[in-house]
Protein backbone atom coordinates (compact mmCIF):
# COMPACT_ATOMS: atom_id res chain seq x y z
CA UNK A 1 0.00 0.00 0.00
CA UNK A 2 2.74 2.50 0.92
CA UNK A 3 4.59 1.46 -2.25
CA UNK A 4 1.47 2.36 -4.17
CA UNK A 5 1.08 5.65 -2.34
CA UNK A 6 4.70 6.53 -3.13
CA UNK A 7 4.03 5.84 -6.81
CA UNK A 8 0.94 7.99 -6.77
CA UNK A 9 2.72 10.96 -5.22
CA UNK A 10 5.65 10.51 -7.60
CA UNK A 11 3.34 10.60 -10.59
CA UNK A 12 1.43 13.54 -9.17
CA UNK A 13 4.68 15.47 -9.00
CA UNK A 14 5.57 14.46 -12.55
CA UNK A 15 2.14 15.50 -13.82
CA UNK A 16 2.42 18.88 -12.09
CA UNK A 17 5.80 19.47 -13.75
CA UNK A 18 4.35 18.59 -17.18
CA UNK A 19 1.35 20.89 -16.63
CA UNK A 20 3.56 23.80 -15.54
CA UNK A 21 6.01 23.26 -18.38
CA UNK A 22 3.23 23.12 -20.98
CA UNK A 23 0.85 25.74 -19.72
CA UNK A 24 2.86 28.58 -18.15
CA UNK A 25 3.64 30.33 -21.47
CA UNK A 26 0.00 29.93 -22.52
CA UNK A 27 -1.27 31.30 -19.23
CA UNK A 28 1.18 34.18 -19.55
CA UNK A 29 -0.05 35.30 -22.95
CA UNK A 30 -3.68 34.99 -21.78
CA UNK A 31 -2.95 37.07 -18.66
CA UNK A 32 -1.04 39.65 -20.71
CA UNK A 33 -4.02 39.98 -23.04
CA UNK A 34 -6.21 40.79 -20.04
CA UNK A 35 -3.98 43.55 -18.65
CA UNK A 36 -4.93 47.20 -19.05
CA UNK A 37 -2.51 49.23 -21.20
CA UNK A 38 -1.25 51.05 -18.12
CA UNK A 39 -0.27 47.83 -16.34
CA UNK A 40 0.90 45.86 -19.40
CA UNK A 41 4.53 46.61 -18.67
CA UNK A 42 4.51 46.06 -14.90
CA UNK A 43 6.14 42.66 -15.29
CA UNK A 44 3.66 40.83 -13.06
CA UNK A 45 2.54 37.39 -14.17
CA UNK A 46 -1.08 37.84 -13.05
CA UNK A 47 -2.74 41.14 -13.99
CA UNK A 48 -3.40 43.71 -11.26
CA UNK A 49 -6.13 45.32 -13.32
CA UNK A 50 -8.28 43.17 -15.58
CA UNK A 51 -9.84 44.27 -18.84
CA UNK A 52 -11.30 42.89 -22.05
CA UNK A 53 -10.60 46.08 -23.96
CA UNK A 54 -7.68 44.55 -25.86
CA UNK A 55 -10.09 42.09 -27.45
CA UNK A 56 -12.61 44.73 -28.44
CA UNK A 57 -9.68 46.79 -29.78
CA UNK A 58 -8.46 44.14 -32.16
CA UNK A 59 -11.93 43.18 -33.38
CA UNK A 60 -12.69 46.82 -34.10
CA UNK A 61 -9.45 47.29 -36.00
CA UNK A 62 -9.80 46.24 -39.62
CA UNK A 63 -6.35 44.70 -39.83
CA UNK A 64 -7.10 41.85 -37.45
CA UNK A 65 -10.56 40.88 -38.68
CA UNK A 66 -9.41 40.83 -42.29
CA UNK A 67 -6.35 38.78 -41.30
CA UNK A 68 -8.62 36.33 -39.49
CA UNK A 69 -10.85 36.05 -42.57
CA UNK A 70 -7.78 35.47 -44.77
CA UNK A 71 -6.38 32.86 -42.40
CA UNK A 72 -9.64 30.90 -42.25
CA UNK A 73 -10.35 31.10 -45.99
CA UNK A 74 -6.85 30.35 -47.21
CA UNK A 75 -6.38 27.62 -44.60
CA UNK A 76 -9.62 25.81 -45.40
CA UNK A 77 -9.27 26.02 -49.20
CA UNK A 78 -5.63 24.85 -49.19
CA UNK A 79 -6.40 22.02 -46.81
CA UNK A 80 -9.48 20.88 -48.71
CA UNK A 81 -7.69 20.81 -52.06
CA UNK A 82 -4.61 19.13 -50.63
CA UNK A 83 -6.59 16.39 -48.89
CA UNK A 84 -8.80 15.65 -51.93
CA UNK A 85 -5.81 15.30 -54.26
CA UNK A 86 -3.77 13.43 -51.66
CA UNK A 87 -6.60 10.94 -51.08
CA UNK A 88 -6.51 9.93 -54.73
CA UNK A 89 -2.74 9.64 -54.70
CA UNK A 90 -2.64 7.72 -51.43
CA UNK A 91 -5.39 5.41 -52.72
CA UNK A 92 -3.25 4.63 -55.75
CA UNK A 93 -0.20 4.04 -53.58
CA UNK A 94 -2.07 1.78 -51.18
CA UNK A 95 -4.04 -0.20 -53.77
CA UNK A 96 -1.90 -0.49 -56.85
CA UNK A 97 1.48 -2.04 -57.24
CA UNK A 98 3.50 0.01 -59.62
CA UNK A 99 7.23 0.47 -59.97
CA UNK A 100 8.73 3.48 -58.27
CA UNK A 101 6.24 3.57 -55.40
CA UNK A 102 9.02 3.94 -52.86
CA UNK A 103 10.61 6.65 -54.97
CA UNK A 104 7.38 8.65 -54.99
CA UNK A 105 7.16 8.42 -51.22
CA UNK A 106 10.81 9.39 -50.86
CA UNK A 107 10.29 12.40 -53.13
CA UNK A 108 7.19 13.50 -51.24
CA UNK A 109 9.12 13.29 -47.99
CA UNK A 110 11.95 15.25 -49.56
CA UNK A 111 9.55 18.05 -50.50
CA UNK A 112 8.07 18.07 -47.00
CA UNK A 113 11.50 18.62 -45.51
CA UNK A 114 12.50 21.25 -48.06
CA UNK A 115 13.47 24.61 -46.57
CA UNK A 116 10.45 26.79 -47.39
CA UNK A 117 12.54 29.91 -47.34
CA UNK A 118 14.43 28.61 -50.38
CA UNK A 119 11.25 28.83 -52.45
CA UNK A 120 10.36 32.31 -51.32
CA UNK A 121 12.66 34.23 -53.69
CA UNK A 122 11.55 32.63 -56.96
CA UNK A 123 7.89 32.66 -55.88
CA UNK A 124 8.08 36.32 -54.87
CA UNK A 125 9.54 37.16 -58.23
CA UNK A 126 7.09 35.03 -60.23
CA UNK A 127 4.02 36.11 -58.24
CA UNK A 128 4.83 39.77 -58.84
CA UNK A 129 5.16 39.14 -62.57
CA UNK A 130 1.89 37.23 -62.96
CA UNK A 131 -0.09 39.18 -60.40
CA UNK A 132 -0.46 36.56 -57.67
CA UNK A 133 1.53 38.56 -55.13
CA UNK A 134 -0.65 39.48 -52.12
CA UNK A 135 -3.63 37.37 -53.26
CA UNK A 136 -5.33 34.28 -51.81
CA UNK A 137 -4.18 31.93 -54.61
CA UNK A 138 -0.67 33.29 -54.06
CA UNK A 139 -0.66 31.63 -50.64
CA UNK A 140 -2.93 28.67 -51.43
CA UNK A 141 -0.57 27.33 -54.11
CA UNK A 142 2.56 27.14 -51.92
CA UNK A 143 0.52 25.81 -48.98
CA UNK A 144 -0.84 23.01 -51.13
CA UNK A 145 2.63 22.21 -52.35
CA UNK A 146 3.85 21.70 -48.82
CA UNK A 147 0.66 20.10 -47.54
CA UNK A 148 0.34 17.53 -50.33
CA UNK A 149 3.41 15.42 -49.60
CA UNK A 150 2.62 15.26 -45.91
CA UNK A 151 -1.03 14.42 -46.64
CA UNK A 152 -0.01 11.63 -49.03
CA UNK A 153 2.46 10.36 -46.45
CA UNK A 154 -0.03 10.26 -43.59
CA UNK A 155 -2.98 9.05 -45.70
CA UNK A 156 -1.10 6.20 -47.32
CA UNK A 157 -0.10 4.88 -43.92
CA UNK A 158 -3.77 5.03 -42.87
CA UNK A 159 -4.99 3.46 -46.12
CA UNK A 160 -2.51 0.63 -45.77
CA UNK A 161 -4.34 -0.53 -42.64
CA UNK A 162 -7.74 -0.75 -44.37
CA UNK A 163 -8.85 -4.35 -45.02
CA UNK A 164 -9.45 -3.98 -48.75
CA UNK A 165 -10.84 -7.56 -49.04
CA UNK A 166 -14.05 -6.13 -47.60
CA UNK A 167 -14.62 -4.31 -50.88
CA UNK A 168 -14.55 -7.57 -52.81
CA UNK A 169 -16.68 -9.27 -50.16
CA UNK A 170 -19.33 -6.56 -50.59
CA UNK A 171 -19.24 -6.99 -54.36
CA UNK A 172 -19.66 -10.75 -54.00
CA UNK A 173 -22.72 -9.99 -51.88
CA UNK A 174 -24.17 -8.04 -54.80
CA UNK A 175 -23.01 -4.47 -54.20
CA UNK A 176 -21.93 -2.41 -57.19
CA UNK A 177 -18.30 -1.20 -57.13
CA UNK A 178 -19.57 2.29 -56.34
CA UNK A 179 -21.76 1.03 -53.47
CA UNK A 180 -18.88 -1.05 -52.15
CA UNK A 181 -16.67 1.99 -52.09
CA UNK A 182 -19.19 4.39 -50.57
CA UNK A 183 -20.74 2.01 -48.02
CA UNK A 184 -17.73 -0.04 -47.00
CA UNK A 185 -14.44 1.64 -47.78
CA UNK A 186 -15.30 5.31 -47.30
CA UNK A 187 -16.41 4.90 -43.67
CA UNK A 188 -13.18 3.01 -42.93
CA UNK A 189 -11.09 5.68 -44.64
CA UNK A 190 -12.86 8.61 -42.99
CA UNK A 191 -10.88 8.71 -39.72
CA UNK A 192 -7.62 8.92 -41.65
CA UNK A 193 -8.96 11.65 -43.90
CA UNK A 194 -10.28 13.70 -40.97
CA UNK A 195 -6.96 13.36 -39.14
CA UNK A 196 -5.01 14.42 -42.20
CA UNK A 197 -7.35 17.37 -42.68
CA UNK A 198 -6.67 18.57 -39.15
CA UNK A 199 -2.90 18.13 -39.34
CA UNK A 200 -2.73 19.94 -42.68
CA UNK A 201 -5.02 22.75 -41.52
CA UNK A 202 -2.81 23.33 -38.47
CA UNK A 203 0.24 23.59 -40.73
CA UNK A 204 -1.42 26.11 -43.08
CA UNK A 205 -2.81 28.07 -40.14
CA UNK A 206 0.65 28.22 -38.53
CA UNK A 207 2.64 29.23 -41.58
CA UNK A 208 4.68 32.37 -41.24
CA UNK A 209 7.44 32.18 -43.86
CA UNK A 210 5.17 32.39 -46.91
CA UNK A 211 2.67 34.69 -45.23
CA UNK A 212 5.27 37.32 -44.37
CA UNK A 213 7.02 37.10 -47.75
CA UNK A 214 4.17 36.82 -50.25
CA UNK A 215 1.61 39.22 -48.79
CA UNK A 216 1.73 42.87 -47.92
CA UNK A 217 -1.78 44.20 -47.32
CA UNK A 218 -5.07 43.21 -45.73
CA UNK A 219 -6.01 41.59 -49.06
CA UNK A 220 -4.23 38.36 -48.16
CA UNK A 221 -2.20 38.88 -44.98
CA UNK A 222 -2.89 36.04 -42.52
CA UNK A 223 -2.96 36.35 -38.74
CA UNK A 224 0.64 35.26 -38.00
CA UNK A 225 1.94 37.86 -40.44
CA UNK A 226 -0.46 40.49 -39.09
CA UNK A 227 0.61 39.86 -35.48
CA UNK A 228 4.25 40.37 -36.36
CA UNK A 229 3.55 43.77 -37.84
CA UNK A 230 0.86 45.08 -35.49
CA UNK A 231 0.93 48.84 -35.46
CA UNK A 232 1.25 50.56 -32.10
CA UNK A 233 -0.54 53.75 -31.16
CA UNK A 234 2.66 55.56 -32.00
CA UNK A 235 5.78 54.31 -33.69
CA UNK A 236 7.52 53.83 -30.36
CA UNK A 237 4.88 52.08 -28.27
CA UNK A 238 4.51 48.34 -28.57
CA UNK A 239 0.84 47.29 -28.37
CA UNK A 240 1.51 44.45 -25.91
CA UNK A 241 -2.13 43.88 -25.04
CA UNK A 242 -3.28 43.80 -28.67
CA UNK A 243 -0.51 41.41 -29.70
CA UNK A 244 -1.37 39.12 -26.80
CA UNK A 245 -5.12 39.23 -27.50
CA UNK A 246 -4.58 38.46 -31.20
CA UNK A 247 -2.25 35.63 -30.21
CA UNK A 248 -4.91 34.15 -27.95
CA UNK A 249 -7.65 34.39 -30.59
CA UNK A 250 -5.54 32.72 -33.29
CA UNK A 251 -4.58 29.95 -30.87
CA UNK A 252 -8.10 29.01 -29.79
CA UNK A 253 -9.29 27.14 -32.93
CA UNK A 254 -6.09 25.09 -33.16
CA UNK A 255 -6.17 24.35 -29.45
CA UNK A 256 -9.74 23.06 -29.69
CA UNK A 257 -8.81 20.83 -32.64
CA UNK A 258 -5.73 19.49 -30.87
CA UNK A 259 -7.53 18.70 -27.64
CA UNK A 260 -10.66 17.21 -29.23
CA UNK A 261 -8.77 15.09 -31.77
CA UNK A 262 -5.75 14.46 -29.55
CA UNK A 263 -5.78 10.69 -30.01
CA UNK A 264 -6.16 10.85 -33.78
CA UNK A 265 -3.49 13.48 -34.26
CA UNK A 266 -1.05 11.40 -32.25
CA UNK A 267 -1.86 8.39 -34.43
CA UNK A 268 -1.59 10.41 -37.64
CA UNK A 269 1.68 12.11 -36.80
CA UNK A 270 3.38 8.95 -35.70
CA UNK A 271 1.88 6.56 -38.23
CA UNK A 272 4.37 5.67 -40.87
CA UNK A 273 7.10 7.80 -39.36
CA UNK A 274 8.03 5.06 -36.93
CA UNK A 275 7.48 1.62 -38.33
CA UNK A 276 11.05 0.56 -38.95
Amino acid at each position, binding site marked *: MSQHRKQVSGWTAAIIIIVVFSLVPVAWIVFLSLKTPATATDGSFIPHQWTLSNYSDIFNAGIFTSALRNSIGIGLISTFLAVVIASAAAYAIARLDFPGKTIILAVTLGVALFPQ*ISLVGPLYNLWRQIGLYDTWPGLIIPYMTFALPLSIFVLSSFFREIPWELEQAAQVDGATPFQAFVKVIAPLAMPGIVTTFIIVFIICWND*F*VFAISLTSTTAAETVPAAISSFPGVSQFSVPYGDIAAAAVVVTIPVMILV*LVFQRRIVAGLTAGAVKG
Partner: protein
Amino acid sequence: MIAVTAYPIIDAVILSLQRSDLRFPNATKFIGLANYGHVFSAPVFWQDLLHTVIITVISVSLQFVFGMLLALAMHRVIFARGFVRGVALVPYGIVAVVAAESWQLAWSLQSGWIPKLLGLSGDPLSHTFGTYVAVITTEVWKNTPFMALLLLAGLALVPDELQEAAKVDGATTWQRFVRITLPLMKPAILVALLFRTLDAFRIFDTIYIFNQGAQGTESLSMLNYNTLLDRLNLGLGSAVSVVLFLLVGLIAFVFIKGFGAGVAPGSEAEQ
Protein backbone atom coordinates in the same frame (compact mmCIF):
# COMPACT_ATOMS: atom_id res chain seq x y z
CA MET B 1 2.54 18.97 -57.62
CA ILE B 2 5.94 18.29 -59.12
CA ALA B 3 5.51 21.31 -61.40
CA VAL B 4 4.69 23.61 -58.51
CA THR B 5 7.69 22.52 -56.46
CA ALA B 6 10.10 21.90 -59.27
CA TYR B 7 9.61 25.25 -60.96
CA PRO B 8 10.77 27.38 -58.01
CA ILE B 9 13.65 25.01 -57.28
CA ILE B 10 14.90 25.16 -60.86
CA ASP B 11 14.25 28.88 -60.96
CA ALA B 12 16.26 29.31 -57.76
CA VAL B 13 19.19 27.46 -59.31
CA ILE B 14 19.01 29.56 -62.49
CA LEU B 15 18.67 32.83 -60.56
CA SER B 16 21.62 31.87 -58.39
CA LEU B 17 23.79 31.85 -61.53
CA GLN B 18 22.71 35.34 -62.55
CA ARG B 19 23.34 38.85 -61.42
CA SER B 20 19.73 39.66 -60.66
CA ASP B 21 18.84 42.55 -58.43
CA LEU B 22 15.30 43.96 -58.39
CA ARG B 23 16.70 47.41 -57.71
CA PHE B 24 18.62 47.26 -60.99
CA PRO B 25 16.36 45.17 -63.23
CA ASN B 26 18.24 46.01 -66.40
CA ALA B 27 21.59 44.76 -65.14
CA THR B 28 20.56 41.09 -65.11
CA LYS B 29 23.08 38.78 -66.70
CA PHE B 30 24.57 35.32 -66.43
CA ILE B 31 27.60 35.33 -64.14
CA GLY B 32 28.22 31.63 -63.49
CA LEU B 33 29.21 30.69 -59.98
CA ALA B 34 30.17 34.21 -58.88
CA ASN B 35 27.22 34.44 -56.46
CA TYR B 36 28.39 31.28 -54.73
CA GLY B 37 31.86 32.78 -54.49
CA HIS B 38 30.29 35.80 -52.79
CA VAL B 39 28.33 33.61 -50.38
CA PHE B 40 31.28 31.48 -49.34
CA SER B 41 33.67 34.40 -49.02
CA ALA B 42 31.24 36.46 -46.92
CA PRO B 43 32.01 36.27 -43.18
CA VAL B 44 28.29 36.76 -42.49
CA PHE B 45 27.49 33.43 -44.13
CA TRP B 46 29.91 31.51 -41.89
CA GLN B 47 28.74 33.41 -38.81
CA ASP B 48 25.11 32.63 -39.60
CA LEU B 49 25.97 29.00 -40.27
CA LEU B 50 27.60 28.88 -36.83
CA HIS B 51 24.54 30.51 -35.18
CA THR B 52 22.26 28.02 -36.91
CA VAL B 53 24.40 25.05 -35.87
CA ILE B 54 24.59 26.25 -32.24
CA ILE B 55 20.82 26.71 -32.02
CA THR B 56 20.13 23.41 -33.78
CA VAL B 57 22.51 21.28 -31.71
CA ILE B 58 21.55 22.70 -28.31
CA SER B 59 17.82 22.86 -28.90
CA VAL B 60 17.54 19.40 -30.48
CA SER B 61 19.64 17.85 -27.67
CA LEU B 62 17.43 19.42 -25.02
CA GLN B 63 14.30 18.43 -26.94
CA PHE B 64 15.57 14.87 -27.04
CA VAL B 65 16.22 14.70 -23.28
CA PHE B 66 12.92 16.37 -22.31
CA GLY B 67 11.06 14.57 -25.08
CA MET B 68 12.29 11.21 -23.82
CA LEU B 69 11.25 12.05 -20.24
CA LEU B 70 7.87 13.23 -21.48
CA ALA B 71 7.42 10.12 -23.64
CA LEU B 72 8.29 7.84 -20.69
CA ALA B 73 5.84 9.76 -18.51
CA MET B 74 3.07 9.52 -21.13
CA HIS B 75 3.80 5.82 -21.61
CA ARG B 76 3.98 4.74 -17.98
CA VAL B 77 1.72 7.14 -16.11
CA ILE B 78 -0.69 5.13 -13.94
CA PHE B 79 -3.55 7.61 -13.82
CA ALA B 80 -4.88 10.63 -15.73
CA ARG B 81 -3.22 9.40 -18.92
CA GLY B 82 -5.59 11.19 -21.33
CA PHE B 83 -5.20 14.40 -19.36
CA VAL B 84 -1.38 14.19 -19.41
CA ARG B 85 -1.30 13.53 -23.15
CA GLY B 86 -3.72 16.38 -23.84
CA VAL B 87 -1.81 18.90 -21.76
CA ALA B 88 1.54 17.81 -23.15
CA LEU B 89 0.27 18.45 -26.69
CA VAL B 90 -0.64 22.08 -25.95
CA PRO B 91 2.71 23.58 -27.06
CA TYR B 92 2.46 21.62 -30.32
CA GLY B 93 -0.90 23.23 -31.03
CA ILE B 94 0.33 26.74 -30.39
CA VAL B 95 0.95 28.77 -33.53
CA ALA B 96 4.72 29.20 -33.90
CA VAL B 97 4.48 32.96 -34.09
CA VAL B 98 2.37 33.02 -30.93
CA ALA B 99 4.88 30.85 -29.05
CA ALA B 100 7.65 33.20 -30.11
CA GLU B 101 5.63 36.28 -29.11
CA SER B 102 4.76 34.77 -25.75
CA TRP B 103 8.37 33.97 -24.87
CA GLN B 104 9.69 37.20 -26.32
CA LEU B 105 7.26 39.25 -24.23
CA ALA B 106 8.06 37.06 -21.21
CA TRP B 107 11.83 37.58 -21.50
CA SER B 108 11.76 41.24 -22.41
CA LEU B 109 12.60 43.60 -19.55
CA GLN B 110 9.88 45.96 -20.80
CA SER B 111 6.96 43.63 -20.36
CA GLY B 112 8.08 40.28 -19.05
CA TRP B 113 7.93 38.30 -15.85
CA ILE B 114 11.12 36.29 -16.36
CA PRO B 115 13.66 39.11 -15.73
CA LYS B 116 11.75 39.94 -12.56
CA LEU B 117 11.67 36.31 -11.46
CA LEU B 118 15.42 35.92 -12.03
CA GLY B 119 16.15 39.30 -10.45
CA LEU B 120 17.84 40.64 -13.59
CA SER B 121 18.43 44.35 -13.80
CA GLY B 122 19.43 44.48 -17.49
CA ASP B 123 17.37 43.34 -20.44
CA PRO B 124 18.32 39.72 -21.21
CA LEU B 125 17.36 40.32 -24.84
CA SER B 126 19.89 43.11 -25.19
CA HIS B 127 22.88 40.81 -25.34
CA THR B 128 23.82 37.67 -27.23
CA PHE B 129 23.83 35.12 -24.42
CA GLY B 130 20.43 36.12 -23.06
CA THR B 131 18.91 36.12 -26.52
CA TYR B 132 20.23 32.64 -27.27
CA VAL B 133 18.83 31.35 -23.97
CA ALA B 134 15.44 32.87 -24.80
CA VAL B 135 15.37 31.64 -28.40
CA ILE B 136 16.41 28.12 -27.40
CA THR B 137 13.84 28.05 -24.57
CA THR B 138 11.17 28.90 -27.12
CA GLU B 139 12.28 26.23 -29.56
CA VAL B 140 12.55 23.57 -26.86
CA TRP B 141 9.16 24.41 -25.38
CA LYS B 142 7.39 24.45 -28.73
CA ASN B 143 8.93 21.30 -30.20
CA THR B 144 9.44 18.92 -27.29
CA PRO B 145 5.88 17.53 -27.59
CA PHE B 146 6.40 16.50 -31.21
CA MET B 147 9.69 14.84 -30.30
CA ALA B 148 7.92 13.09 -27.42
CA LEU B 149 5.15 11.82 -29.74
CA LEU B 150 7.63 10.28 -32.15
CA LEU B 151 9.53 8.70 -29.25
CA LEU B 152 6.30 7.49 -27.66
CA ALA B 153 5.46 5.57 -30.83
CA GLY B 154 8.86 3.89 -30.59
CA LEU B 155 8.41 3.19 -26.91
CA ALA B 156 5.18 1.34 -27.64
CA LEU B 157 7.16 -1.12 -29.77
CA VAL B 158 9.32 -2.27 -26.84
CA PRO B 159 7.75 -5.52 -25.56
CA ASP B 160 6.83 -5.56 -21.90
CA GLU B 161 7.89 -9.22 -21.52
CA LEU B 162 11.49 -8.26 -22.27
CA GLN B 163 11.41 -5.65 -19.52
CA GLU B 164 9.91 -8.15 -17.09
CA ALA B 165 12.49 -10.80 -17.98
CA ALA B 166 15.36 -8.38 -17.39
CA LYS B 167 13.79 -7.30 -14.11
CA VAL B 168 13.67 -10.95 -12.97
CA ASP B 169 17.35 -11.29 -13.94
CA GLY B 170 18.13 -8.42 -11.58
CA ALA B 171 18.68 -5.54 -14.03
CA THR B 172 18.22 -2.07 -12.52
CA THR B 173 15.83 0.44 -14.04
CA TRP B 174 18.71 2.34 -15.62
CA GLN B 175 20.29 -0.83 -17.05
CA ARG B 176 16.96 -1.84 -18.55
CA PHE B 177 16.57 1.61 -20.11
CA VAL B 178 20.06 1.69 -21.61
CA ARG B 179 20.34 -1.97 -22.64
CA ILE B 180 16.81 -2.78 -23.74
CA THR B 181 14.66 0.30 -24.31
CA LEU B 182 17.18 2.49 -26.14
CA PRO B 183 18.47 -0.14 -28.61
CA LEU B 184 14.94 -1.26 -29.48
CA MET B 185 13.88 2.34 -29.95
CA LYS B 186 16.80 3.19 -32.20
CA PRO B 187 14.76 3.51 -35.43
CA ALA B 188 12.22 5.79 -33.72
CA ILE B 189 14.97 7.86 -32.12
CA LEU B 190 16.75 8.37 -35.44
CA VAL B 191 13.57 9.42 -37.22
CA ALA B 192 12.68 11.82 -34.40
CA LEU B 193 16.16 13.35 -34.41
CA LEU B 194 16.16 13.60 -38.21
CA PHE B 195 12.80 15.39 -38.32
CA ARG B 196 13.66 17.77 -35.53
CA THR B 197 17.20 18.52 -36.78
CA LEU B 198 16.00 19.38 -40.27
CA ASP B 199 13.27 21.57 -38.84
CA ALA B 200 15.54 23.30 -36.33
CA PHE B 201 18.11 23.98 -39.03
CA ARG B 202 15.51 26.00 -40.94
CA ILE B 203 14.69 28.17 -37.88
CA PHE B 204 13.04 31.40 -39.00
CA ASP B 205 9.79 32.31 -37.24
CA THR B 206 11.20 32.50 -33.72
CA ILE B 207 14.19 34.60 -34.68
CA TYR B 208 12.13 36.89 -36.90
CA ILE B 209 9.72 37.58 -34.05
CA PHE B 210 12.45 38.00 -31.42
CA ASN B 211 14.64 40.53 -33.17
CA GLN B 212 14.92 39.71 -36.90
CA GLY B 213 18.40 38.35 -36.27
CA ALA B 214 19.92 41.08 -34.12
CA GLN B 215 22.18 40.24 -31.15
CA GLY B 216 24.13 37.70 -33.15
CA THR B 217 21.26 35.28 -33.65
CA GLU B 218 20.79 35.67 -37.40
CA SER B 219 20.21 32.17 -38.82
CA LEU B 220 20.76 31.03 -42.38
CA SER B 221 17.03 31.24 -43.16
CA MET B 222 17.00 34.78 -41.78
CA LEU B 223 20.00 35.69 -43.97
CA ASN B 224 18.18 34.13 -46.91
CA TYR B 225 15.07 36.21 -46.22
CA ASN B 226 17.03 39.43 -45.74
CA THR B 227 19.02 39.01 -48.92
CA LEU B 228 15.95 38.16 -50.97
CA LEU B 229 13.28 40.46 -49.64
CA ASP B 230 15.07 43.25 -47.82
CA ARG B 231 17.95 43.81 -50.15
CA LEU B 232 15.95 42.42 -53.13
CA ASN B 233 19.07 40.71 -54.43
CA LEU B 234 17.52 37.67 -56.08
CA GLY B 235 20.74 36.25 -57.49
CA LEU B 236 22.67 36.27 -54.24
CA GLY B 237 19.60 35.29 -52.22
CA SER B 238 18.94 32.34 -54.48
CA ALA B 239 22.53 31.21 -54.07
CA VAL B 240 21.97 31.22 -50.29
CA SER B 241 18.73 29.26 -50.89
CA VAL B 242 20.50 26.61 -52.90
CA VAL B 243 23.28 26.29 -50.31
CA LEU B 244 20.70 26.01 -47.52
CA PHE B 245 18.83 23.37 -49.51
CA LEU B 246 22.03 21.38 -50.07
CA LEU B 247 22.93 21.58 -46.38
CA VAL B 248 19.49 20.26 -45.40
CA GLY B 249 19.90 17.48 -47.96
CA LEU B 250 23.34 16.68 -46.54
CA ILE B 251 21.96 16.41 -43.00
CA ALA B 252 19.20 14.08 -44.19
CA PHE B 253 21.73 12.00 -46.15
CA VAL B 254 24.05 11.65 -43.14
CA PHE B 255 21.15 10.55 -40.93
CA ILE B 256 19.74 8.07 -43.45
CA LYS B 257 22.96 6.56 -44.78
CA GLY B 258 25.19 7.12 -41.75
CA PHE B 259 22.85 5.93 -39.03
CA GLY B 260 20.37 3.95 -41.11
CA ALA B 261 17.28 5.96 -40.27
CA GLY B 262 14.54 4.51 -42.46
CA VAL B 263 11.44 6.50 -43.32
CA ALA B 264 9.14 5.06 -45.95
CA PRO B 265 5.65 3.95 -45.06
CA GLY B 266 3.95 1.67 -47.52
CA SER B 267 7.15 0.28 -48.93
CA GLU B 268 7.25 -3.48 -48.79
CA ALA B 269 10.90 -3.70 -47.86
CA GLU B 270 10.55 -2.51 -44.30
CA GLN B 271 7.54 -4.56 -43.30
